[in-house]
């Protein structure tokens, strides 16, 4: 991110491998920066390899949400291994409170991945199927592992893949709505949806219906935390300038 204009100059993404440190060293070889802040679950390892400071993704999301969408109060982040909901004071940009999902993978992006695999679909196919499906069906298991066996038994009863795909979305939706319920004020007409899960267009549409609010998804929802970290690093840059 350019510190003056806040324009994003470059972005890239890679799947987490078993040797995260080696991936980070590659970044060090191929990129240069004036200041850097690491965020997310690997932030401390990243700091070890790349230097700089760390910030939790919660603060990073708060910062970018307030910067890019100043009127937003509520942010929901659906990531690979957890889901977070944030309530921000729209005047000051201060984080007022946050909630996270329970420690299991139910209600996270991982749930979609596993359910898609159970149905033998890719993630995009799962989303497309859900849009065609009927919402009459309910998956009751809250645990990813139990939900998997529930989906298999539904398949054996001859229910269509589309209806099951829809039910999988509804199941996750219920968790998002419950998490959001504690983080929304009556007078906010829209919420911000970020993280990889926000790329799921079916889920975005269902969520908007469920909470009866506009759901805003930024252009690159899965980079939104990184943008927040970049915005925060500007403070360090300014401090360094002062030192000089």
């Amino acid at each position, binding site marked *: 991110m350019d510190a003056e204009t806040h324009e994003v100059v470059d972005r890239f993404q890679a799947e987490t491998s078993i040797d995260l440190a080696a991936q980070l060293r590659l970044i060090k070889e191929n990129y240069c920066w004036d200041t850097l802040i690491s965020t997310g679950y690997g932030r401390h390892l990243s700091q070890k390899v790349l230097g700089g400071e760390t910030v*939790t993704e919660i603060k990073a999301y708060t910062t970018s949400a307030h910067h890019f969408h100043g009127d937003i109060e509520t942010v929901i982040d659906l990531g690979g291994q957890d889901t977070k909901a944030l309530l921000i004071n729209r005047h000051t940009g201060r*984080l007022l409170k*946050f909630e996270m999902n329970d*420690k299991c993978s139910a209600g996270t992006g991982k749930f979609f991945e596993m359910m898609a695999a159970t149905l033998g679909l890719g993630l995009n196919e799962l989303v497309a199927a859900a849009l065609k499906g009927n919402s009459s069906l309910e998956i009751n298991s809250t645990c990813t592992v139990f939900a998997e066996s529930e989906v298999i038994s539904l398949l054996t009863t001859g229910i269509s893949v589309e209806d099951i795909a829809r039910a999988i979305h509804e199941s996750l939706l219920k968790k998002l709505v419950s998490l959001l319920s504690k983080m929304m004020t009556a007078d906010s007409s829209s919420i911000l949806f970020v993280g990889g899960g926000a790329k799921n267009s079916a889920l975005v549409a269902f969520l908007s219906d469920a909470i009866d609010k506009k759901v805003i998804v930024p252009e690159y929802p899965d980079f939104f935390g990184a943008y927040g970290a970049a915005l925060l690093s500007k403070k360090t840059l300014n401090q360094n300038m002062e030192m000089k």
Partner: protein
Amino acid sequence: MSQLTPLFMDEFAGFPLKRALGQVVKRRENGARVVGAYCSYAPVELIWAMGGVPAILCAFSNTPIAKAEETLPANLCPLIKSSFGFIELKTCPFFELTDAVVGETTCDGKKKMFELIEKHRPLYVMDLPQCPANEGAVEYWKHSVTGFKKFLEAEFNTTITDNSLEESIQASNAKNSLVEEIFAFGSHKPSVITWQEMYDVATYAMVSHGGETIAKLREIIATLTERREKGIFTSTEHAKRVLITGCPVGGDVLKVLKLVDEEGATIVGLDSCTGLKPFVGRIQEGSGDPLLAIAKRYLEIPCACMTPNTGRTDALKKQVTLLKPDLVIDLVLQSCHTYNIEAVKVESFVRNGLGTNYLKVVTDFSAQDLGQLKTRIGAALEMD
């Protein structure tokens, strides 16, 4: 930090439970009977009065849980599973030392677990009234206290006189006020006492009694006073301050407290039963009815098993006013419904009533949620 004088100059640095075990063993070798107890409601004055020593049986280790789950349901409080697993494995050194055990009906899980261990030791279960403000609650609880006295007398063929009870009450009061004085050092900014030291003191005081204990606690106060006067601090000047409340903590669940340390914050108070809670409040001396005096004081313990538990918010208000934390962490053990639900009221009280940031953490003794806890605690401490 290197110039810190340790509060305990012994071989048990970093091992408060081993120190406590040493205390129990020493008394046992001198002929004292060991009575195991599961919570702060156990009126230890009766045990001291008959020349016995209490041993705390609540366990906080993840290790015996697999064994416990062979018998108990998995979705049960980890403290109950851990305590039971240790007994099944015969690896709890405290339980192995006990001659009798006292339980209290603080929760359904413990209550039914006691039925499974009564084959191992003579057991007395004290029935705890759970609406402490209702008419007759204190009198009912006094029956339980009296029943416990009769149980000890019959089991150990002894008599607990009113005089010995009175002495025991006075010794407890003296000890408890010193422990309270030590915890009040948490108010200093920057900190002059660490949470490990508070935990050391609480664990030691739980199984200690009498002149030697009073002298030791006074010595600790002198050390802390010296730190304060010489400006020897255990935290940085601007470290965020954290008060821990909720379920008892120890062993593997200290992971939460260690994460607070890792984030550069300082824990200024431990409000739970493994912290200050059992040492707050005094038993009336010279009342003429020591059993009633004991019953009154113990029923004032603000555990979430009580309803309404107004004492909890009163205690939190006092602690927050004294210690001035930036964040209150409400630590709830998985499946502890009373603390988990009470958290709704506690959150509202801490945020709106006291104007202090609040974080509820529901966890068990495993390491599975370390990454998520680190993010949660880190984010709560980043808030201003």
